[in-house]
């Protein structure tokens, strides 16, 4: 992994999402947004282990995955702004995104819905003899959906080149994992189902990358599905731009503990310890700020979509 690149990628996700959060109150982004702030290392670490032609599926919390896989930032923001130049021409918004050129194969908000799709894409890759790996991101809560288990079973049966990535951020909306699952590790279930399993500190991009690389190498050599459970934490509210610790659903101090192991800052600290590190960070910040400003302008200037086009999207 190119550590600087990974850092840059995380920083970019962070700054993009912060910018979304900052501007959300303007009420020009009129769709639900689920921010990944605090969870950037998972998306970036996993995608760093993938090739461009590999595919990624995601869920309601898609921005980080989309960007880490190389999705077009301008098209993403324009989509969130509901414009014709958005990646789905305004049909999708933040919760339904795609960038086929980047191998970002789709995100939709029904939890668990993309997990079997990813398995199907991996199946197609195998049937077509393509040397292609598919990764799918989902949360701890999503692991409770039966369809995830059906998907894992099929993937293990057919030894498909699929990487299941569980972002265990301890919560599904406001529900803590202990209110939804018994006390046993998620990855243990996947192991019992026949996956090669890995765990990683989801706030350490290098750690995520390391297990991903190993997992993906196994996939390319036909060893059957792999499952990575990453421990991480969402800083903001489940849906929307705000902090919500005031609501009291998380134990006191929990957020602060996780903020103290910020994935972006952790990587930055590592870089700062290197010669030129500080300069590098500064230049990344600048470049990203410029790119973001550009992208928001692109989105805000985007033409409005036309309702008359909608029926044509329905059938081929």
């Amino acid at each position, binding site marked *: 992994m190119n550590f600087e690149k990974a850092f840059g990628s995380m920083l970019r996700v962070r700054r993009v999402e912060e910018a979304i959060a900052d501007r959300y109150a303007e009420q020009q982004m009129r769709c639900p947004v689920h921010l990944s702030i605090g969870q950037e290392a998972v998306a970036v670490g996993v995608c760093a282990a993938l090739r461009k032609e590999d595919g990624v599926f995601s869920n309601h919390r898609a921005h980080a995955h989309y960007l880490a896989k190389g999705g077009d930032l301008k098209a993403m923001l324009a989509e969130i702004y509901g414009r014709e130049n958005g990646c789905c021409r305004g049909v999708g918004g933040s919760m339904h995104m795609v960038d086929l050129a980047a191998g970002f194969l789709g995100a939709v908000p029904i939890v668990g819905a993309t997990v079997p799709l990813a398995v199907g894409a991996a199946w197609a890759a195998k049937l077509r003899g393509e040397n292609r790996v598919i990764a799918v991101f989902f949360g701890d809560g999503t692991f409770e959906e039966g369809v995830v288990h059906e998907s894992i079973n099929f993937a293990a049966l057919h030894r498909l080149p699929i990487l299941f990535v569980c972002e265990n951020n301890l919560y599904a909306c406001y529900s803590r994992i202990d209110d*939804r699952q018994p006390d046993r590790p998620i990855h243990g279930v996947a192991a019992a189902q026949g996956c090669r399993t890995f765990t990683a500190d989801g706030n350490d991009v290098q750690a995520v990358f390391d297990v991903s690389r190993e997992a993906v190498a196994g996939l390319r050599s036909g060893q059957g599905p792999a499952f990575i459970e990453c421990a991480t934490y969402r800083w903001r509210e489940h849906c929307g731009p705000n902090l919500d610790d005031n609501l009291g659903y998380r134990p006191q101090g929990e957020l602060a503990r996780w903020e103290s192991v910020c994935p972006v800052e952790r990587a930055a600290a590592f870089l700062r310890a290197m010669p030129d590190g500080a300069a590098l960070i500064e230049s990344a910040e600048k470049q990203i700020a410029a790119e973001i400003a550009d992208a928001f302008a692109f989105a805000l200037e985007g033409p409005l979509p036309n309702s008359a086009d909608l029926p044509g999207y329905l059938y081929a």
Partner: protein
Amino acid sequence: MRDDKKRHITQADAIREALAQALQEDERVIVVGEGVPDPKGVFGTTAGLQQQFGPSRVFDSPLSENGMTGICIGAAISGMRPVMVHQRIDFALLAMDQIVNNAAKWRYMFAGQVNVPLVIMVIVGRGWGPGPQHAQSLQAFFGHIPGLKVVMPTSGYDAKGMLLAAIRDDNPVIFIQHRWLHGIEDLVPEPPYTVPLDRAAICRSGKDATLVAFSYMVVEALLAAEALSQYGIDIEVIDARSVRPLDMPTIIESVRRTGTLVVADTAWKTGGIAGEVIAAVAETAFDALRRPPVRIALPDYPVPTSPYLVKDYYPDALYLARHIAAHLGREVPDAELAERLFRSTPCDVPQKDFRGPF
């Protein structure tokens, strides 16, 4: 009863009150669902219930819609009276097997030996870009299934009374809320009361046309009727309230008086419940119809996310009024009508111009 208290509360509060009273009056009642005990309390409809009734009556749920539905059916046939809550009706698609194959049929399959006193509360979403997978209006699915009762109250008064009736009922009831009704205030008496699960309500009498509306469309229908009344067009607005069974006697009696049937639904037009209303009237009261019946419903594609696209998607009061006037062959000054029914709020937040009560 309706006026005995003069207490205006929002529909979300009315629903919350009904749940609290049901929990209070019958210890077999439990409430379970994803997010039920959380700080937002399913748009306020379940707020505080866990604090009030404890964690052995009010439960959060894993993200397992089909399994949890089956689990609640299992509890229902074992002496409990579960109330399940889905934040969006779309999620109930995952539970269609348990709803259709078990909940609706368990009593029938076993020749009436076991009841399934289960309420499934679902919410039809709308507004602020929920998009294709989070704003469907799937009442037609449930309305097709023998063994289910399906209601879609509009007023806060009915929401409370029908929810209490549903919970006291010994059959599986699908209780469909509309997100845009939660914030509307209505006169809601505090003591527990019930409203029948199988009766439409005439919300406004009129002689020129019968406008049968479902759920939130009643709001738009009332606005349209009010505007048309300024031009001497007299619309009878019926709040269908129940999807299964449809209250055909009330609807037909009205059509016999007006000769004209318009049905306004929150769902896609083709294959929706609006068509069922029309088919049932055409079959059994054909002679009453003086002109073709009309459906006003969603276009046959999913709702997009962008507000610039949504603005043309949902038929509103103006759309209704224009179409009804044209259908009746009555001239109405269009610009004036448009001004009357000007919607001051954007298309993706609730209609401000109707504030309740019903």
